[in-house]
């Protein structure tokens, strides 16, 4: 176990030791994340927003070093913006995923970043791409990430169903993230949910007292 004695060590770099999740349902996708950013044992930000805007219907969930992932997301946001202007229509989620992938792959020795790219496009509908540490790209129907995800693999494997309704998917994400926050010291605080569909984006703030598992 990696225990850092706070009395003798300097603070560790800020990471989103975290729980992030995205699930495709029938008609869109639900994204969920906790709100804790930690620096070693210290909670640097207790209400962070880990759901980053990339484009109108493309979002990324960040885990690993906060600095690395923020910097990469900023670049990709810029590239996608320019690309969308030239294209004149909504960019493909796969394009954004590929731009992230280029960073994570080329600089794999210097970066500590794992990202979930989730969004909707008019060509293939809702999609989720998982980009783990090395820079590989894996398309999935549902994805969990961050340190808290280790605690909910069993829960997710047994509770995931194809073609869920919006309510089922929302409850699935809410309970999974809550269970991860319950056990992971690096996850906590409030839960932020985002519903992405063809027509709209809906954000939801789940206050600590409404988190189902405490």
């Amino acid at each position, binding site marked *: 176990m990696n*225990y850092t004695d706070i009395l003798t060590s300097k603070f560790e770099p800020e990471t989103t030791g975290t729980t992030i999740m995205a699930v495709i349902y029938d008609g869109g996708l639900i994204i969920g994340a906790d709100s804790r950013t930690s620096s070693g044992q210290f909670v640097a930000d207790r209400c962070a927003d880990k759901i980053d805007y990339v484009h109108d219907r493309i979002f990324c969930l960040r885990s690993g070093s906060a600095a690395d992932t923020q910097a990469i997301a900023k670049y990709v946001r810029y590239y996608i913006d320019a690309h969308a202007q030239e294209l004149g229509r909504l960019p493909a989620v796969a394009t954004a995923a590929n731009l992230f992938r280029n960073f994570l792959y080329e600089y794999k020795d210097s970066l500590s970043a794992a990202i979930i790219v989730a969004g909707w496009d008019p060509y293939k509908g809702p999609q989720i791409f998982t980009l783990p540490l090395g820079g590989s790209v894996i398309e999935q129907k549902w994805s969990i990430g961050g340190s808290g995800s280790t605690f909910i693999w069993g829960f997710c494997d047994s509770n995931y169903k194809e073609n869920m309704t919006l309510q089922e998917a929302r409850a699935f994400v809410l309970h999974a993230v809550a269970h991860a926050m319950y056990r992971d010291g690096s996850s906590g605080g409030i839960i932020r949910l985002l519903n992405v569909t063809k027509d709209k984006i809906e954000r939801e703030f789940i206050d600590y007292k409404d988190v189902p598992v405490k």
Partner: protein
Amino acid sequence: MIFNSEISGQQQHTTSPVVTGGSVIALVYNGGVIVGSDTLCSYGSMAAFKNVQKIVQISQNTIYASSGEYSDFQQVVKELAKIDRSALQYDDGVHPSPKDYGNFLARLSYKKRCKINPLYLQNVIAGFHNKERYLALVDIYGTYLESNFITTGFASYFCKAIISNYWNENCTLEQAKQVIRECFKVLFCRDCRAHDVIQLAYVDEQGTHIEEPERVETKWDFNGFKSRANEKLHTQ
């Protein structure tokens, strides 16, 4: 710190902690001493054991709590109980005072520190004896400090300011409890290894009282928290 187990040939028990308990906060008040801690033991970064009692009665007028390696905490409880039992064998009606326990623990901790095999703990002993309040900290090296208020672990960084501003040594029990609750609220918000269910225990003239665990209320629904979401970047 991580101690090198190759230095001495004998078995090392505490080279680095595995199951750890969180901060302990103790205050003196007008009628006795109160100690508070949360009910969580962490396994590294995992919140593994959520309903753990980390404050223990040692004798009629002494309580003990500590933060750090939980197995060492359990071992210390056994060692302190041995003192009580061997004192009974003299059959002279003399019971160890809280300070006797504190002193013994300091000597024990120092001896183990000299052998590079420490009890990986910051210990708090609290008691009430001969109408006097007793509160002491014994740390991992065997340093012994008597004081009116004690904080261990992360609480030393966050809670001393709260205690300085809202507590004095002659406050009431209720006031002291409120100060400790406020401290644990801050810890729950800012310490990754903290839990919002805490337990309070106090010693006064009547003896020791260990209360049932309670949950502290923290506030998360600030407007600034809700609206800081990256919605401002959305264009539609």
